[in-house]
């Protein structure tokens, strides 16, 4: 009986081929728009995450709890050699870079502002981060203990400084004495989020350890990259076991929870977005089904007259509505998948909003990603919404009086 209901419902849909085609195409386009937007947004999000991990977060961080809680510059990593030996011994760690960090005032000829000074090992830094690659003017640090300084383009603009300008950094060393040092701007980096560019500048770790009056082989934190990011938690667990108990290891999601949550938030937002699209589409289908019932009153009345019971009539209307909705589903998913696959290769230029995207460290060309994990969710959403929206037309049909319906011309 189900098969016959299905067959009859399918034929009923095509009684008005144009009307049904318009509804099915509208549904397919809605689904396509939803899938494409999800793929584009995920592409943007992935680019933002990759950029953040490559530019300033890394995959993980080793530090002491005291430093993380208080930012106490004296709370550098103890047993540094032991820690770095563990990192070297792990075949799941591809690179690591030590950092000393302190807050500082930076002063150019005309302006001053607060910044975070990163003391980095020029060679190792380039293995973990793209800081060196991002230098657009001059060069990255070359001297492990010189007076070179690399600042972000945004900070350079803010301070009105150019390459080879001199600037002064002022901060407290670990004994409480004020240190003021003159540095040369040897490099300007760009293409990272404006917030990071304005906040972080780089000097050599040797220079900073001396200025902070810290031992020569000391670091507040070590950032590292792993060979397989998907296995980060397992890698961290192994590293933790091999290191002194005093250090703590954090993955990138803990270092930057906002970034870590972005994927989840985006997924939720996208589901809401596509639900809204599908809701709008469902109203179109509801309208079509109500029209169909109005037009077929006489026939529905006749069906009840000759003995079609209410549950069968209900099933017929619900099936018609479901078929009308679901017919557009494969087309919509196929369109979405193909368009995402194509644009994932070519990218989509967002040059018109380049500046806004740069604020978040995202390149102006977005590479959408295919999102097969959403297809089943979308199919389920279409099914559930269609079923819900079929109830009203089905109820209208059940309320028909056979005698009155058959009088309709």
């Amino acid at each position, binding site marked *: 009986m189900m098969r*016959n209901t299905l067959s009859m419902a399918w*034929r009923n849909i095509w009684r008005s081929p144009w009307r049904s085609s318009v509804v099915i195409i509208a549904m397919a386009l809605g689904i396509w728009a939803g899938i494409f937007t999800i793929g584009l947004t995920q592409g943007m999000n992935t680019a933002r995450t990759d950029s953040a991990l490559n530019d300033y977060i890394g995959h993980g961080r080793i530090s002491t709890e005291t430093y993380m809680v208080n930012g106490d510059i004296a709370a550098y990593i103890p047993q540094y050699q032991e820690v770095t030996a563990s990192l070297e011994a792990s075949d799941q760690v591809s690179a690591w870079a030590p950092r000393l960090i302190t807050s500082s005032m930076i002063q150019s000829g005309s302006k001053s502002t607060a910044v975070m000074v990163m003391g980095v090992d020029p060679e190792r830094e380039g293995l973990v981060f793209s800081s060196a690659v991002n230098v657009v003017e001059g060069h990255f640090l070359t001297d492990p203990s010189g007076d070179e300084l690399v600042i972000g383009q945004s900070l350079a603009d803010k301070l009105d400084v150019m390459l080879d300008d001199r600037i002064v950094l002022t901060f407290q060393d670990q004994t409480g004495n004020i240190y003021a040092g003159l540095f040369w701007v040897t490099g300007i980096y760009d293409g990272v989020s404006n917030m990071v560019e304005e906040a972080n500048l780089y000097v050599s770790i040797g220079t900073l350890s001396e200025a902070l009056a810290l031992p020569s082989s000391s670091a507040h934190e070590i950032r590292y990259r792993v060979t397989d990011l998907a296995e980060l938690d397992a890698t961290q667990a192994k590293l933790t076991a091999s290191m002194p108990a005093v250090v703590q290891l954090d993955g990138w999601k803990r270092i930057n929870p906002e970034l870590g949550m972005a994927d989840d938030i985006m997924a939720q937002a996208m589901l809401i977005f596509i639900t809204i699209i599908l809701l709008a589409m469902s109203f179109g289908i509801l309208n079509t089904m109500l029209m169909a019932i109005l037009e077929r009153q006489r026939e529905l009345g006749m069906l009840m007259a*000759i*003995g079609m019971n209410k549950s069968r009539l209900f099933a017929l209307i619900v099936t018609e509505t479901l078929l009308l909705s679901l017919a557009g589903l494969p087309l919509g998913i196929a369109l979405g998948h193909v368009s995402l696959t194509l644009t994932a290769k070519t990218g989509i230029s967002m040059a018109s909003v380049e500046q806004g995207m740069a604020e978040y460290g995202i390149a102006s060309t977005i590479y959408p990603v295919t999102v097969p994990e959403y297809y089943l969710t979308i199919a389920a959403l279409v099914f559930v919404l269609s079923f819900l929206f079929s109830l009203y037309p089905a109820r209208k049909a059940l309320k028909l009086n056979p005698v009155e319906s058959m009088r309709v011309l």
Partner: protein
Amino acid sequence: MSLIQLNDVLKIYTSKAGDVTAVDHVSLSIEAGEFTAIVGPSGCGKTTLLNAIGGLDRPDKGSIRIGNSDITGMSDKALIDFRLNNIGFVFQAYNLIPVLTAMENTAFIMELQGVKKTERLQRAMDLLSAVGIDGKANNRPNQLSGGQQQRVAVARALASHPQFILADEPTANLDSSSTGQLLDIMAKLNADEGMTFLFSTHDQRVIDRARRVITLEDGKVISDVHV
């Protein structure tokens, strides 16, 4: 026992213009195997009476028995089942299902009854053959003439093995040739298989073939003639 027994059936329609008595205290009995026409001018209550007998409309008063069943007290659900298994309907406008072929239209009612596919297809073909339209079994209603559609409607009405067939103005939309053919078929089914037919009609050609003619006026039976 009569096949159809109406006792003092009253049906009043209420409207803004006032109450209209469509069936006015009608008592009738129809025996199995009859070929009966209910006649009268438009608005005399023929269709209302047929609808009440067919369980499509409920009388305001009185009772209707079909065989051993009093249909006036049945629930809507029970009435649907009763109609499905006991009454065949032929409508003035044929009312075939447009998306189904002649064969599927005929078999449809058996599907509702839960008859197995092979059995219902065989019976549908036999019935189409009986009404002389087996050559059009795979045609949809829009590919059939009015007369052919009405013959399919008769086949459909017979498909459920009903106790009787109600035909509301079955020839009203047919030309005289088609009317003749349809009446021949119905008369043959009546004569050969004892199928009871109850028509409402204005059509003199139908009245001429009927063996009993019940005339209504203003909802009342004013004559009941066995020919």
